[in-house]
């Protein structure tokens, strides 16, 4: 119940906003912020009550939704989703605080933000295919409006591209879901879309696994985005308002990596092993390509957008190492990227507000004019590069550690990405912050306001906290990672494939649900 409450609180808040007259802009902003902050603070409870030793789902709720189809409203959290969930509530609050500069249609904007939050939170907790798909598609709609209404000059193009690209990927996933649904009925004898039940008992041969893997892969690879499905990302990022970019980089991209962890790996372990070379090659291309393209960007936001492609390549590699370090690093880097890239987008948003341009060539020598800003920007730049002592280092180090155990070549190639990252980030930093102050328009730029400092402070704390003492974060992953590793270990699924229909567990859906509902948390 608590999880349902947390998830739908923002949506309820959006409905409350609908009744506030649109002239009362300040009330609307404060209400939205209050709801988002409350949601974040309450979601910390999940962390406090989380049982670190269990790899199972916690805070579960399971209610029958569509009886005839065997669809249920089944939610829960495990080590993979816990921090992503909390990060979502956190970034929502940050984004709303960072949206004070939105002056057009404030009410609708805040409503869209809160609705988006519910959609994203739902994705991370759904334990039912149908429910997952509903949330997965639903969150597109508010994001579509956020980019399309409050975005930059090419916003319509960007938002339609974003929407269609993602919808395209996920619709094939829908076909795969229905296919699994019937397959499960044929082999096990029950119509259900319950993810936990299906993951436990599904029985697929390699060909089936490969096809299904591809269908899910497309949906998630577009979202991550992996090379060559990344083309929507720079457009969406550049045109989105600052808060939209933060959410996009911080949460939406994570849905892709989360999808791999929740669906592809446990459901199709055989195919996951088979497809390792494909994923690895695409990820390495993504890392290097993203970095090289980022290097030549003239627009700050686009540079950071391409750096996301590069960073997410690391996360993907980490996931497909299937070992403890790699997965731990990937999960941690998921969070790190949300914090660091989110912060970079916020910072770029701040100078854009002051100068209404994001072109690197327009700047130079800003360190003298806006020192506080420069310090923040430097911290985030270094975190993005992965300097020891920042969060980026821990994540990338763990991933590379895991990767070296699996493949030397890929690890070597991926490491070059770290070097490239240093190149494009430091070079950008140099051109923006140092050199001489040539452009007179930059001379009277205002330094960070208290509100902006408030936004940045928690992010900076997190950068160093994870950098120096990551244990409170990484320990949440451990049990779930172990469970996942056993699941995808080839030793556990080699042997004669079980004949279809060999497990005649004919169960009544309703009865099944009835049994389980007794031990809900």
């Amino acid at each position: 119940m608590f999880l349902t409450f947390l998830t739908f609180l923002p949506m309820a808040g959006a409905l409350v906003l609908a009744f506030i007259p649109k002239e009362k802009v300040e009330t609307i902003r404060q209400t939205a912020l209050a709801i988002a902050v409350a949601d974040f603070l309450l979601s910390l409870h999940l962390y406090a009550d989380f049982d670190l030793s269990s790899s199972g789902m916690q805070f579960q709720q399971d209610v029958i939704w569509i009886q005839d189809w065997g669809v249920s409203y089944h939610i829960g959290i495990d080590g993979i989703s816990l921090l992503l969930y909390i990060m979502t509530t956190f970034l929502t609050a940050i984004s709303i605080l960072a949206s004070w500069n939105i002056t057009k249609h404030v009410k609708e904007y805040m409503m869209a933000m809160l609705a988006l939050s519910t959609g994203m939170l739902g994705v991370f907790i759904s334990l039912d295919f149908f429910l997952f798909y509903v949330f997965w598609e639903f969150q597109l709609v508010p994001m579509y409006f956020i980019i399309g209404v409050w975005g930059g000059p090419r916003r319509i193009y960007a938002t339609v591209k974003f929407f269609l690209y993602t919808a395209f990927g996920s619709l094939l996933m829908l076909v795969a879901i229905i296919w699994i649904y019937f397959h499960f009925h044929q082999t096990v004898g029950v119509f259900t879309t319950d993810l936990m039940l299906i993951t436990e008992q599904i029985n697929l041969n390699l060909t089936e696994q490969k096809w299904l893997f591809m269908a899910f892969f497309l949906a998630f690879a577009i979202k991550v985005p992996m090379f060559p499905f990344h083309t929507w990302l720079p457009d969406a990022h550049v045109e989105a308002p600052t808060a939209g970019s933060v959410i996009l980089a911080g949460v939406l991209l994570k849905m892709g990596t989360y999808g791999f962890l929740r669906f592809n790996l446990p459901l199709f372990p055989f195919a996951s092993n088979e497809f390792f070379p494909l994923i690895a090659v695409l990820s390495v291309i993504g890392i290097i390509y993203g970095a090289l393209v980022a290097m030549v960007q003239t627009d700050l936001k686009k540079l950071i957008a391409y750096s996301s492609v590069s960073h997410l390549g690391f996360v993907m590699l980490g996931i497909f190492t299937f070992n403890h370090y790699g997965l731990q690093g990937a999960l941690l880097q998921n969070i790190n990227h949300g914090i660091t890239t989110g912060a970079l987008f916020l910072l770029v948003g701040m100078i854009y507000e002051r100068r209404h341009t994001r072109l690197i060539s327009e700047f130079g020598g800003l360190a003298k004019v806006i020192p506080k800003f420069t310090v923040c920007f430097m911290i985030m730049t270094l975190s993005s590069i992965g300097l020891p002592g920042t969060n980026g280092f821990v994540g990338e180090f763990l991933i590379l550690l895991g990767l070296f155990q699996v493949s030397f070549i890929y690890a070597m190639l991926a490491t070059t990405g770290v070097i490239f990252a240093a190149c494009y980030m430091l070079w950008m930093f140099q051109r923006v912050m140092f050199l001489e102050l040539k452009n007179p328009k930059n001379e009277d730029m205002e330094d960070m306001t208290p509100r902006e400092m408030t936004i940045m402070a928690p992010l900076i704390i997190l950068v160093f906290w994870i950098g120096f003492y990551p244990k409170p974060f990484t320990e949440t992953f451990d049990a779930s990672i172990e469970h996942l590793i056993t699941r995808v270990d080839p030793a556990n699924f080699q042997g004669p494939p079980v004949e279809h229909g060999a497990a005649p567990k004919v169960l009544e859906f309703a009865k099944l649900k009835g049994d389980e509902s007794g031990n809900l948390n």
Partner: protein
Amino acid sequence: MDPIPAPEIDLISLAPVLVLSVFAMGVLLLDLFAGKNKSGLVFVSLIGLLMAAISSFAKTGLPVHSFGGSYVVDHLSVCFTMIFCMSSALAILLSVEYNKRVKIKIGEYYSLILFCTVGMILLASSTDMIMIFLGIEIVSICLYVMAGIRRDDPKSNEASLKYFLLGAFATGFLLYGMTLLYGTTGTTKLVEIGRLLSTGEVSSSQPLLMMGVVLLVIGFGFKVASVPFHMWAPDVYQGAPSAVTAFMAVGPKAAAFAAFYRVFAESFQALAPSWGMILSVVAVLTMFVGNLGAILQTNIKRLMAYSSISHVGYILIAIIAGNSLGSASLLFYMLTYTFMIFGTFGIIILVGREGEENLELENYAGLGFRHPLLAMCMSIFLLSMGGMPPLAGFIAKFYIFQAALNEGYVILVVFAVLNSVISLYYYLKVIVYMYMKEPTSDLKISMTPITVMVVVICVFATLELGLLPGPVISLASP
């Protein structure tokens, strides 16, 4: 010679038809005394539809066959009768204020809708090809008149004439197909044909039989506007008065689909391999032509026409699946489609005003922030039609995909899914106009209460069928 046996007459199973016919004639008579104010007629018509809907439950112990096996009351026909009564009621409600505005002052309008509904019920309940033909004719003739009901408007005339000519043409095909089937099987009864084909008493590979089947596909294809027989739809939809367009897009189409389903999925099951292929190709083409055609439209009614063509493609998949999921998904789809279409057209009517119908997409620019509720409703309908969860349209599509995948039509479903993405493009385009463009006109909208009521009903239904579809799914499953 034996005397010709008189078929048993079971008037109870005809109850909804009889009730509606009486009311339709009553409305015609009342019109003589009603004078200028037609609201009495509206009231009587609605009562008639309600009575018809109730009386469709008169029979118990379904299915009941009567009139020598040419009429049936079963789960499918009762459910369709409900849908027809509901869609006709919505059409009447939608017409009240619209007709005043565009000066349609003809009382026969309402009685035509009722008669048309009679035809639809007949069509959904017939198990004899002659009855099906009669049903189609009753429906079509009413529609020809309704499309041209604005006698002074050349567009309306054009729509009516086009519809009539092509419709008559299609009826010819249909009739010819039926003749050939009669010639090869020796009967017009669907149950009998089904039996003959499945037991192999009539060889299913006869060329004449196949020709008959193909001609039936063409005939029904015209009626439901599937590709390549869809040409009439955009012109007719655009030219007909908006309320009539909404009516035409839903009820009669649903009725044609009911008959389509009965003929193909029930009696021609033995021939499924051959017509399944033809229909699959037709379905895929229909989706593509509908969706790609809609992308280019700038007139909202034409856009809706092409969009409805593409929906025909999805619905055909339910017929191709031909299983019990197929009929249930067909029912569910038609029900959700009813609400989505009437809701959308309700808004289209509201955006128009006396003298200017405001049917271009530009007229919707800026609607999002001038009339937030209206635009939100429109967005809900459009996204629902595009199949976005958690709205009714998504559940309906999911249901149809389920039915098809259960029969192993993976490729077909993949095509359907691709088309969903294409369709999202133009549905989003309307939303882009509403929310992301600056208004070009003053957007003065008078919220006429009955039309608003229709929109509100439809929004609630779209949300309800999306969020809690369970009960309706139970009802739809036989």
